[in-house]
């Protein structure tokens, strides 16, 4: 078993009097695909927000790559190698698909204002390089032909892919996917699974995902943690999760026909 790339250690998150996460711990091994599942409102997205620095945990810590990153600001967390996508797609409107991906390279471009305004070689060098890289990522997603289209004009499934492509542009080690298959038909879901497997291989990624589609989770994840009301009620193989009585109870039997 490889070392944990991400460790969530005794994290509690309270909003006023409401406890969204209650003393949660889990470890995501490097190179694995790890699933977070649980009914709506179980605290899954909250833990994503804790990891990316959007919320600072009330108690506990987030360890990434051997370093305590609790309370680190979101843009610094990204620089350390964590990228995410959203449950509700959040692409930049009125920007092209390519530009959306280019934004992700922001921190990897090192030219100053002077070089940018006077279009010096460094400016051109960086701009050309990231364009090539961004197109490479888009090709991997089969989106190269849409590069100049407005991102929000794409089909729902393709917009999700653009979001993942944009996240990849920040060069993450850990990719957080918040319900990547939501709203997709079975064919799109299948396509998405293949892409995630491929980029995981090509970019040497560890993936932590939130998902409701159990078929998808089963196919993708090595390990799952099941949350209910902010507490961990199960951790183990996805196949075992769906027969675990506590998990079944949490979902009120919803799993039986999923």
């Amino acid at each position, binding site marked *: 078993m490889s070392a944990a790339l991400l460790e969530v250690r005794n994290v509690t998150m309270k909003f006023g009097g409401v406890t969204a996460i209650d003393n949660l711990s889990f470890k995501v091994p490097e190179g694995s695909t790890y699933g977070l599942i649980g009914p709506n409102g179980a605290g899954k997205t909250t833990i994503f927000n804790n990891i990316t620095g959007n919320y600072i945990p009330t108690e506990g810590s987030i360890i990434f790559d051997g370093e305590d990153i609790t309370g680190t600001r979101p843009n610094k967390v990204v620089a350390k190698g964590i990228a995410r996508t959203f449950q509700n797609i959040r692409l930049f409107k009125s920007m092209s698909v390519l530009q959306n991906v280019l934004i992700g390279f922001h921190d990897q471009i090192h030219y100053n204002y002077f070089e*940018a305004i006077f279009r010096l070689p460094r400016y051109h060098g960086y701009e050309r390089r990231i364009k090539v890289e961004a197109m490479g990522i888009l090709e991997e997603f089969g989106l190269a032909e849409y590069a100049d289209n407005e991102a929000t004009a794409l089909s729902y499934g393709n917009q999700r892919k653009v979001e993942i492509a944009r996240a990849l542009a920040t060069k993450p080690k850990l990719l957080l996917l918040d319900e990547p298959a939501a709203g997709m038909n079975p064919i799109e879901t299948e396509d998405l699974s293949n892409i995630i497997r491929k980029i995981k291989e090509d970019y040497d990624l560890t993936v932590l995902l939130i998902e409701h589609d159990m078929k998808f989770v089963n196919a993708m994840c090595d390990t799952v943690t099941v949350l209910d009301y902010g507490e961990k009620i199960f951790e183990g193989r996805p196949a075992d999760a769906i027969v675990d009585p506590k998990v079944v109870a949490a979902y009120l039997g919803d799993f039986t026909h999923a």
Partner: protein
Amino acid sequence: MDLTTFLQQLINGASLGSMYALIAIGYTMVYGVLRLINFAHGDIMMVGAFFTFMATAAGLPFTLAVLLGILGSVIVGVLTDKIAYKPLREAPKISLLITAIGISFFLENLFNVIFGGVPKAFSAPDYLTKIFHLGDVYLPITVIIIPIVTVAILSGVLWVLYRTKYGMAIRALAFDIPTVKLMGIDADRIITLVFALGSALAAVGGIFYAVSYPSIDPLMGVIVGLKAFAAAVLGGIGSVTGAVIGGFILGFTEIFVVALFPELGGYKDAFAFFFLILVLLFRPTGIMGEDLERSRF
């Protein structure tokens, strides 16, 4: 109107429009990223003119004085954001708006206390007060320089906005600040950049104004600022190209209406607001604005 008068007014319009355009960009960019009508922006222009005035009064060469004026505006503009607006990022937009009005009053009165309300003569160097005569066309050199410098500056600004990583971040910020942060971008730094850029352009506009009219007072930014704001709305608030177009349209209209109907000269300042009302009635998104337009379907 004969050709001479027409050319004369065309050049005057370009010059006035340049000033509006330079100031309007600051309004539109700040609105773009923070959804704030920064009512203190007109006063930032005044600050630039005053810093330049002080520097020339201290005997510094004019070029250096201009740079100091721009720097002064940038510092005050950025500090305004850091001190007054930044603590209110999560607050309702109306709090931000009221704060902006407060900052505006504060700057006006601060300069009033320091310099007094009496307009001060702004002495531009001799090479900026030359006047050419082309046939019957009367051309103060400033009227020629202002549009040229403005176009040069604007092309630089548009390049930065549309072709560099900074501009890309600014435009992305206009849509979604939290997501921009998750792209590894320091959103606060980009917002600072927006204020710095907007303030620098306003300072240039203020210095042009001071050189053209040539007097300055602590309230000089009020009407010019409001007109530049009208220009920004006319062009489509949030759109930089729109602000430029709006600024020039306003400059030309103001000059030409007065030239064609001299009896309306007294209402000169009213045209901008008449325009503003028309835009708000018939095309609230302005010429280049799109957000509302898009949400209609």
